């Protein structure tokens, strides 16, 4: 499904974005860098606080898991030593998610829940990139996230929401307009080593394509910010 994104959607947040991808909609609001509480202060770098709120219900261990993954990966991308003893707060609110029509009982299907995590992470990471650029927080490189699915027949499909043999979330960094390093990867299902590398390779190509789209949006947003110069 096509990516639909808006930048600068919230007023109180320093930087924000709203991204719709694969039926999932996420709003990201970034606050900071701001004063840290004593227990959060780190002497030489910034403290990153990631808060994810689900579409339905209260945050659970599932959201904590996603917060942890995103925090680890953002720590390697944000230039922390420019903001010592300060806090950067990344808030992600999941507004719409894939409709789980099959179950109406309180506990849903386990594998469906894990796959949903990848789809939601995918949307969250792309949303976080646009919001970080909007918030003017210094980052080492651009990044974006893509999802690939291996069907039961063995073909590799981008996105792919139906039943899958394995699903792969791939996040690449972009430096000097080229795909740089793999920043984060998460894989669910059964797959061979060869299949994994094929997915990563495909990820490199798709990452460049997605980056040009995100870049277009960011450039447009910067133009809007400086419209008074024209």
């Amino acid at each position, binding site marked *: 499904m096509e990516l639909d994104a808006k930048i600068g959607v*919230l*007023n*109180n*947040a320093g930087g924000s974005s709203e991204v719709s991808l694969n039926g999932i909609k996420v*709003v990201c*609001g970034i*606050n*900071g860098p*701001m*004063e840290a*509480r004593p227990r959060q202060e780190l002497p030489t770098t910034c403290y990153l*606080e990631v*808060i994810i*709120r689900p*579409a*339905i*219900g*209260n945050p659970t261990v599932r959201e904590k898991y996603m917060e942890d993954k995103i925090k680890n990966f953002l720590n390697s991308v944000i230039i922390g030593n420019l903001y010592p003893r300060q806090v950067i*707060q990344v*808030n*992600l*609110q999941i*507004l*719409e998610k894939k*409709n789980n*029509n*099959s179950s*109406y*009982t*309180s506990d849903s299907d386990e594998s469906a829940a894990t796959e949903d995590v990848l789809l939601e992470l995918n949307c969250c990471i792309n949303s976080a990139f646009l919001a970080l650029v909007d918030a003017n927080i210094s980052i080492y490189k651009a990044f974006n996230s893509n999802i690939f699915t291996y069907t039961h027949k063995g073909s590799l499909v981008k996105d792919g929401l139906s039943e899958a043999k394995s699903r792969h979330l791939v996040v690449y960094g972009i430096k000097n307009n080229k795909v740089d390093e793999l920043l984060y990867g998460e894989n669910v299902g059964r797959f061979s080593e060869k299949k994994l590398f094929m997915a990563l390779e495909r990820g490199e190509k798709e990452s460049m394509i997605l980056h040009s789209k995100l870049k277009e949006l960011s450039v447009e947003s910067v133009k809007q910010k400086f419209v008074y110069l024209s």
Partner: protein
Amino acid sequence: MVKLAGLSLNEQEFLTDSLKQGIRSDGRSLDQFRDVEITLGDQPGYVDVRLGKTRVAVRVSGSITKPYEDRPFEGIFTISTEIGPIAGAFFENGRPSDEEVLVSRLIEKAIKRSGALDVEGLCIVAGDKCWNIRADIHFMDFDGGFIDASCIGVITALQHFSRPEVTVSGEQVVVYSTDEREPVKLSILHVPICVTFALFNPKEKEENIKGGADGNEEAGEFAIVDATMKEEGLSNGTLTITMNKNKEICQISKSGGLPAEGLMVMDCANKAYGIVEKLTDQIKEVLKQ
């Protein structure tokens, strides 16, 4: 500590003086509600409400569960009102702020306790299975008016939502997916709308110790409709009136703050009715599409 520095004295004086002259910083009159923008999501039960800079999203979902022991013939209806720091850095994560507690109580009174949603209609098998309808309010941007925006959001989302059709044969319950049978709308008995007033009395601050009027008939108490964050911060008290189009008052809440004249409360109720009428019609229009 993550705290707002607060408005400077200059700004406070400026805002209060403007309000005394009947002028508001966004050009509205004292009795004017902000324009409300209601957007329905693709999935049933999702509504996005914008009230000026304030933005709130509501998602209604349903699941089947066992009813409460002491109410076997009723379904369950819960409203979640957690405000996170995405709405503003002054909201702490995990800790209920004053604003959150207020919104939670008021929305509960306005929608749940006023019986807007027919919970008896949610029962499937008495004492065994019932629908658990859940409204999650996502507060995304704060500029005052959270109570009003959430109420509009929840009541619209409840009307927008539809649950799957269910048939009962003896002990067995069959749930039909949306492809098999048309989903069923919830039974909404009335549409309550909240209108919040912010109360001001600048004269209080200059009260003569001997008591009584000191000659100048300056602006005494007055109320403004739908305060923004800055206006709310300057107010001496708030009053929330929830009404429906049938001119019924569902709840009135005036928790502490400036003592208000009884006649002013009546006056506010009348003003609120005009706003409630307009908003109910607007919601109806939006749902028709």
